[in-house]
Structures are given as C-alpha cells and as structure tokens.
C-alpha cells in the first residue's frame, strides 16, 4: 500500500492503494468514477480510455504509481456540461447502441481532434482502431468525428 496523489479532472485526489493498481480500478473502485469501463484489461479494446496529459491512454494497463504529477481526464471531466464538441456530435448522430464502449470511443476521438483538427478517414481509422464497438456503431462514430471536427 502507498499513498498516491493524482490529479483527476482538475481535482487533487489522494488514495491509498497498491501502487501497481491500474488507474482503471482506482477510478472505478476507489473514486466512484465509473464512466471509464473495463472491457479486456490488456489494452486491446479501448473501453478504459482516458487522457493523460492530453493523450489517449488505456487506463487498464497503467499502474497508478507512474501517474503522480500528470493531468488525468476521464469522461466525467471531458467537459463541464457534457457539451464537448465530440459529445455533442455523438448526440447529434445518435451514435450509441448499448453505450458501453462509447466513453472510450469519445476519449479517443477527443484526443485525436486535439492533435489533428481535420483528420482524414485514414487518420480516424488509425486513431480509433484500438476501440472495439461490439454493437458495430463504427460508421456513426466516424461521421460524428467529422462533425465534431467541423464544430470545434
């Protein structure tokens, strides 16, 4: 056990956990931020995607011990009122089916648009290929990313 300080969604949090605990489980079990999802635990599905210093990362495979001093953003902190251009575009295109993968999809998409304001189809494929949607909403996700790019 160790006390670890994390900056999550602009707030300082202190938690007492095994330093090897992946960020995902700290978020879900210790901080009640359950928007970030577990899908595989081995960085293969993207359901657990968060931003670490603005970059999309798979929180299931990041022990918290390395995260002190880094800025972590989860789906709950992506915007104040759920009005990030990506979130708005997701609603405009009515993207979700079951919705389970969508927090991860949105975090990957938001990180993509941050470094590439006008992604090509190829750029979108590359950035989003790590996020599985079992319900098959890929065509809507792609369309929503293009809408978000226009509106941000």
């Amino acid at each position: 056990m160790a006390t670890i300080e994390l900056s999550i969604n602009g707030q300082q949090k202190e938690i007492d956990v095994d330093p090897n605990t992946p960020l995902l489980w700290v978020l879900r079990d210790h901080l009640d931020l359950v928007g970030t999802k577990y899908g595989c635990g081995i960085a293969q599905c993207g359901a657990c995607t968060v931003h670490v210093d603005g970059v999309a990362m798979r929180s299931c495979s990041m022990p918290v011990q390395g995260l002190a001093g880094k800025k972590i953003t989860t789906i709950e902190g992506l915007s104040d009122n759920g009005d990030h251009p990506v979130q708005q575009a997701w609603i405009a295109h009515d993207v979700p089916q079951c919705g389970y993968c969508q927090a991860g999809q949105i975090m990957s998409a938001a990180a993509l648009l941050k470094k590439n304001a006008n992604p090509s189809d190829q750029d979108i494929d590359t950035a989003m290929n790590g996020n599985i949607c079992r319900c098959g909403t890929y065509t809507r996700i792609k369309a929503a990313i293009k809408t978000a790019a226009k509106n941000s």
Partner: protein
Amino acid sequence: MTVVKTSLNRRSFLKSSVAAGGGLMLGFSWLASCSSGPKETELVMPEEWFTINSYLKIGDNGVVTIYAPNPEFGQNVRTSMPMLVAEELDVDWKNVLVEQAPYHPTDYGMQFTGGSRGIMSRWEPLRMAGASARHMLKQAAAELWQVPMDEIETKAGMLTHKATAQEISYGAIASQAAEMPVPEEVELKDINDFQLIGHSKKNVDGKDIVTGQPMFGVDYKAEGMMIAMIAHPPGFGMTLDSFDGTDAMAMPGIRDIFAISTYQEGQDKGGFDTNAFPEVVAIVGSSTWEVMQAKKKLKVNWKPFATYKEMISGWRGKEEKTIPAGLESSEKHKVKMATLSAKPGRVARRDGDPERAFRDATKVIERSYSAPFLAHNCMEPMNSFAHVQGDKVKIATPLQIPSFLVPTLAASLGIPVENVEMDMTRMGGGFGRRAYGHYVIEAALISKQVNAPVKLMYTREDDMTNGIYRPAYHATYRAAFDQDNQLTAIHVKAGGIPESPLYANRFPAGAIDNYLAEDWSINSNITIGAFRAPRSNFIAGAEQSFLDEVAEELGKDPIAFRLELLKRAKDNPVGEKNDYDADRYAGVLELVRDKSEWNNKSEGLHRGVAAYFCHNSYAAHVLDLEIKDGQPVVQKVTCAIDCGVVVNPDAATNMAEGGIVDGIGNAFYGELTFEDGVPQKNNFHEYRMIRMSEAPKEIDVHFVQNGIDPTGLGEPPFPPIFGAVANAMYRATGKRQYNQPFLGNKEVLG
C-alpha cells in the same frame, strides 16, 4: 382505428400507485436516479405525481414519466417503447421522462429482450396503456365541463372542448383523471394519425452515455459491497476436484474463498439454465484489483467429469438431457461433422421426388459450408450485484430475460419466488448471451455465504471461456439440373454441434418442385446458447451462397433468379407449409436492387447480394467490396428491410447498421476453437473483433413502407450479410468462400 380491450386492471394500478409512493420505489432508487430524458435542470419537476397506470404517471405541471418495461441492451427500447405510450397519450415528447420499470411481471407483463420480439409484443399493450390514460383524462374533463366526452380533443398534453371554448392541461386534471375508472376498451390511433411513431427521436439515454453516468450492471454500487470473482474449470468436460486457497487468502483485501454449487441436488432447471460449470470456486475481497491478483494465487485441481443427465423443463415440457463426458477438440469435431453429413440425416421435409430428380440429373452441384463456435463477447462482461438477507434477495444485473431466471434463482437459494427483487440495469450488449443468468445465481450464493452485498465480476477471460457459445455448424447443399440446364431439385443436409441450423420450411422450400431437407446433430459438453438470430446466422449465409452458385450455373442474374423463385412460391407454392411471405420477401430484394442501382451501376464493382427471412421480418443486402493490399475493403452496404411499421427510424437504422457490421466481422474473423476441452482464445489479443478500419465505409439502410404491424428488427439484418460477404468476395477474387471465418486470425491492433 383499432379498438382493443384493455388488459390493465384497477388492481394493478392501485398496486403500482402504492409502489410509486413508497415501499417498492425505495427498492429501485438506483435506477430511478437514472431517469432519462430532459434533465431536471431543463425540465421543471412537478410537486406531485399522479399514477394513471403502471406505465405512466402525470405530474401536476404536465410532465409525464413513462416506465420503460423491458431491459435495454442497445436496441433502443428505452426510447421506442415509451414512444408508443406517448403517441396514444398525445403528450409532447419534450415533456416525457423515461424511467426503467423494476422487474414486476404482474404490472408489466413479460419483461425481456430477445427473439426480436420486443416492439412486436409491446406494440398493442403500450399503445393501449397510453390510450386508456388519455381516455381517463378525457373522462375527467368531460365531468368537469359537463360535456360529452367524445367532443373533447387532445393534443400535446392539452384537452380542448371547441364548442364551449374550454381547455385544460393534463397536469391540471391529472389528479381527477387518476380517480376515473379504467375503460374496458379503448380506440387506438390510425396509423396515418401518428405524430411520434415513425419520426426519429434521439436516444433518451444519449446524454448520460456520452457523459459516463452510472447505468450498467458493472457500475452498480451499494453500501458495504464486496467484490467477488469465480474460478471455473479451464476446459469443458471438467469440474472441480479440490482447491487450496491459503496463498490467495494471504493476499491483501481478501475476505473469503470457498466453493459454490450453483444448483441444489435435484433442483428443477429451465431451458435457459445452461451452465457448463455449476461447481466453481469463489473469491471475495474489497476491490476488483485485489481480487484479480489473489485469484492468480488460487490453486485449484480440476478433474474430468463422467457423463451425466439432467431434467430440463423447456418449451417442449420436461426433457432429459445428457451431458457427455470427454475433452473435445475442434479437429475431432470437424471429422465427426464430415462423417455425419455424409450419412442420411433425419428427413425434415420432402417435396416431389427429389431422389429421382437427382438420379435423372444431367448435372449436379454439391457444396459444403461450415462455421465455428463463436463467443458473444458483449463489451460488458457478465456481472451481477446480489444481496441476500435472510429469505430475501436484492439483485441488480444486466439480464435479458429475468422471468426465466427468477424461479431457478429462488430454488437455488431456497427462498420463495416473491422474495426476489430485481433491478434491470442497462446491458453493455447481450446478443443472446445474457438470456442465461447463471452468473446471477453465483452472485447470490456468494452473497449468502459472506453475508454481505456482493458484486460478482467476470474478467474478459472468464467471460470468453465460460460457454453459451454460438454452435458450430455444417451444411451440404446439392442442386440438380436437367438436360436443358433447368434447376430440378435442391437438397440440403445441415447439422451442428449440438444442434442443426436447418429451417426446413423457409425459402427456397416452396419454390422448388423437388426439395429435400435433412438434419443431424452431435451432442457435446461445450455449452451453447442463443446468438443473434440463432441457426439463421449460419444457414442464411450457406443458403444464399449456394443460390448464388446456382444462379451462376443457370446463367442468371442473382437477384432476378431469386425473384423468379419467389414468384413461383407465390403463384404456385410447392407444399403446404411455407413459413415466409413471398411478396414481402421479393419486396426487400426489389428495394435493395433499386436503391443499390444494381441493374445499371454494378459495372466495375464487386457486388454480392443476399436476402433472408427470420424473426417475422425480411432483409436484403447488396455489399460492394474491393481488394486492397490483399485485404477486402467493404466500400458500401445497401440494405432493405421489411419489419412493418418502424417506430424510431434513425435508431432502427443504427441497429441495422450494427447487425451488418457484426455480421461482416464474424464472417471475416469470428472463431473459437477447442483443444482437449480448452477454448483456444480468452481475450481480444487472440479473438479478433471487427474494428473501425474494417467496417464498411458506408451503410445505406432502407425500410419498406407498408403499414404492417411491427415485426422483428434486432436480428433479421444479421444472417444474410454473411452471404452478401461471401458472394462479393467471389466476385472480387474468383474464389468461393465455404468455411467461416473467411479471413481467420491475423495480428490484432491494440
């Protein structure tokens, strides 16, 4: 205008009004807090609610809460079902809040998700609930104004009497309406008068989903809740021998380790109580990561089991089922399937004299098709919250058909059925997997043992290796041609492990003079379950690939050839019992032909067509494919569906798109194999799922407009896409595809 008898009785209303005021309501506060629609900030909440019936309550300011009766797994029923109520109630959709109903069959009838039967089964009852509420509102206004009730009109939450120029809002008269007698029968709107049905409405949960609000089973939390996991045998055909939990118990945060037996000796089991591993080891601790780590230290000895039998009460009454001993392998499965398919099967249908037609044939073509076991791989792994207290249990879980599970759960716990209280959480996918709720029983038994609220979590590995798979299938098709190269007979022989995919009375039965359908099956201890469009999900692809080859042999256009057969089936059907409507079937083929511009745009494109009927609906696809760098790229899928009236068109389109993507993914990559009983894949690094770059670049969905009452939609677009993929791949490569997966496993991106 349809007049329907109301099946809501006063007693159920009173019961639910009591529930809404106290008691039960507390029980589902977690879900009540997940009410959807415009948020409270955007919608002023009423001071008082008036329960009109179990499906809806009206606030004194006109805001209406509609209870979504069925569990949601992504098919949009939390939006489209309340739309049915709101349509007949004549309320402005902006003023509607949606809340998940608790599991309560007396108030809500059959609460389930499966068989593409949701909207179909709720189509009349939910409109009736809305219409009877409107009737009671009108009756209250008629008494207030002392005017004849049939002179009162309703619109967007207002009641008006033109002649006396009076009007009143639903909210203002809700308290009186709640006192009115329930009408014995009500009139439902004519389809042409629909204001909501047929007009796209956004997912009521959209905002909650994109902001990561808690709503799934895995998100559930209760005071003092422990986390539990199970260790199940590594392979089918095995069971628990002994375990040593000493090292695991010494790990931080671990509370208890013990074995559980899911069923009691001699307990009655239903058709959905499939469970390969009823004896498992449970490990309970304070957090997920701690339990995961400790589980690695658990030492368990597993042993092969001997053949055993159990009694199952299913659709066909009580049946004895044999679970064979043995550690099975896919290689051996293949050999067994080939052997059985070479022998005569059980004749399921015979029209004309097929044997003679084959004997007299100038040419016969014979093709065999196969597909492997598939795992559902719902994105949210199986999980359940349970809290057993004395002879009561509180459950919150993502489950498709609670009513099938509850009797078994009660029996496993030895408590009365009425003492099971259940929240139906949103499901992170289902696809049939969550019709089998053994994980709920496991959670309850663990809670009972540790005497605490517990959330049982399956890891992805647990989920993928626990069974309930799509069966492995095999089908052989033969066609006979005479000296004029006319098609004279078709013979299909289809089987699988452990069930045959054959639907003997579906197309092309009814269109062929000499037709023979046979089936066979091989028993197995690898457990199977419903998987999006069971059986159809294989046989459609095989049949539609074969018909493509037959059309080619005949030198006919694949769509024209199918239409010709369907015309025959309509004008002069062969046999008595044909399950499909040839007109509706032809309708989707014609629509997809026109929308894809099949007849004038196909030049230079590699296009495959396929169509199928299942779950009372019709679907046809045209799939355009290119080969780039040795890999197929699906450029576009054009799709036509006839599922009758479409309630929420954009959401229905989304689900059809999903079915198409799901089918392409499974046709290309889906496969689970076994060695000595052990599944050869346990997570997404090995089990290849379709990803963004492999999804079609464009999907264009069209619905037949015919005003027929709604039929299924979640499943029908799925089966035929396998055939469309195979036929397009043939056009692109010159090679026919017979064995799924067509591409197999290659490196997975991550």
